[in-house]
């Protein structure tokens, strides 16, 4: 790169960084600062008031009030989370559900992404479009579509009975099976798109070389294709796993109510029990559980978008 070019780039870079000011301030105000409030309220006592927590932090009262506020903080809510089985079980359930769903998603999504990447070039944008459309369509609507099919006198039971496979309607809704189906259905595009992006970019001559050198198709895939697609696998896995752990809508509408995922527990504490401190503590623990995958995801994004 010529010195002149570098110079031009630097001149451009000076003002460009000022573009960060507005979005930076916005994100600090509406993304970072709110977590301080979550942390703070998670450490306060539940109160029957509006808003339902105490003590309320009062900036105007100065340093004395600040000290008082700190003195009033308690780990009560976190103690509750650890001691009450309900919470521990719902964290565990969330992790298990997310793990199992992510594995299923990978198993189903990979062959689809692989098939897309092997389509003739002019068909690939069409195929990608077809995967993106559901990705843009509301989760709620897509789950509702499944309720139409799975309900007691829904299409699935009608078909099964017409074919004499079952004699009585099967209960599909409010089961774990329905929930897994809903999760896999909703998150499939999130798995396919990063996988496809990696597979489509891959240099096909590497596979050809391996085949020319005598590798069986099976070996070509496992020794060349799959290892080269690992960055896409990582992106897809994180893109699915992290949000599924905190998923609310899908288990709420499709799973039974006897065991809850942590997103549902948080929702219930907040909207039904009006216990904001416990809801906040639940959110803090959920965040702590997700810190490692979130950091991994952040690194991956950064590498992808900024390494050029």
């Amino acid at each position, binding site marked *: 790169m010529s010195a002149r070019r570098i110079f031009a*780039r630097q001149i*451009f870079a000076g003002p*460009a*960084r000022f*573009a*960060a000011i*507005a*979005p*930076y301030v*916005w*994100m600090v105000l*509406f*993304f*970072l600062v*709110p*977590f301080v409030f*979550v942390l703070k309220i998670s450490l306060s006592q539940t109160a029957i008031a509006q*808003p339902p927590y105490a003590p309320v932090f009062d900036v105007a009262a100065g340093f004395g009030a600040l000290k008082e506020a700190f003195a009033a903080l308690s780990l009560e809510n976190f103690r509750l989370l650890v001691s009450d089985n309900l919470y521990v079980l719902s964290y565990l359930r969330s992790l298990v559900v997310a793990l199992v769903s992510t594995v299923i998603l990978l198993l*189903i999504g990979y*062959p689809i992404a692989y*098939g897309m990447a*092997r*389509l003739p*070039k002019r068909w690939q944008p069409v195929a990608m479009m*077809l*995967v*993106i*459309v559901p990705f*843009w*369509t*509301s989760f*709620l*609507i897509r*789950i509702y579509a499944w*309720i*139409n099919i799975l*309900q007691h006198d829904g*299409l699935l039971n009608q078909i099964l009975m017409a074919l004499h496979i079952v004699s009585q309607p099967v209960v599909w809704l409010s089961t774990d099976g329905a929930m897994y189906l809903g999760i896999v259905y909703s998150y*499939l*595009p999130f798995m396919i*798109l990063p996988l496809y992006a990696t*597979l489509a970019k*891959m240099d*096909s001559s590497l596979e050809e070389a391996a085949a020319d050198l005598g590798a069986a198709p099976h070996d070509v895939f496992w020794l060349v294709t799959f290892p080269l697609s690992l960055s896409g696998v990582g992106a897809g896995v994180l893109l699915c796993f992290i*949000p599924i752990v*905190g*998923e*609310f*809508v899908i288990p709420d*509408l499709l799973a039974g109510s006897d065991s809850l995922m942590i997103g549902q527990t948080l929702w219930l504490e907040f909207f039904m029990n009006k216990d904001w401190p416990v809801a*906040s503590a639940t*959110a803090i623990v*959920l965040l702590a559980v997700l810190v490692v995958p*979130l950091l991994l*995801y*952040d690194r991956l*994004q950064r590498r992808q*978008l*900024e390494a*050029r």
Partner: protein
Amino acid sequence: MAQARLSRFNVASLTFGLAFLYLPIVILVIYSFNASRLVTVWGGWSLRWYREFFNDPAMIEAAWMSVRVGAISATLASLLGTLAAVALSRGEAFRGRTLFSGMLYAPLVMPEVITGLSLLLLFVAINAERGFWTVVVAHTTLTMCFVAVVVQSRLGSLDRSLEEAAMDLGCDPVRAFLLVTLPLIIPSIAAGWMLAFTLSLDDLVIASFTTGPGSATLPIRIYSEVRLGVKPEINAICTLVIALIAVVIVVASLVSKLSSARGESAAPL
């Protein structure tokens, strides 16, 4: 990989994948035209449930609120997201850059219950009246991150020598950006706007936390109806939303085709 021949396995997995993704939606749409009140009994084609929706003031009001929230928050998000993308892909290092990009990427995967709860607690703490504007702020915060990623990936694939040439020819950096860079990234900003709009239109969880009594968005209303069971009117509303989103996507893809014709690769999303 385009040269490789499709194996039977490839064809099978593609067919399965697309059928799996589309069949439920197609069934939902078909049943929205069902004349029968029982969702599962076919009573012939009819527009009855669409009429029902247009005569339901509460639903119409919620839909109107969702469209307004979507349009305003998508516009704010496009502005802020574009600025963020420019700073990250063109700006020199600045203090807190890592924190900045972290804050932009985290909301993409952050469980919605956490984002919603934390914003609500902020609004309560600063005594903001909850309703239309708090939902706008919440959706802007979420969707500007998506816009930033879309625009940033476009900026990354753009040929920088164009900007450099403009400056060599005497443009100052701001003019070089406005006259050269901006026209080239406009299509992806537009695509980002549309993504932001549909995300806002779809969101249930964050809106539930941040809205106030009396101002429900369309997903909030749909959700409370869905909890009570399947109703053909809901099928009709869902079909209308899907149609709206499909139009938005077709426009977005035409726009990004335009952008790929002008530059190099277009961002898929």
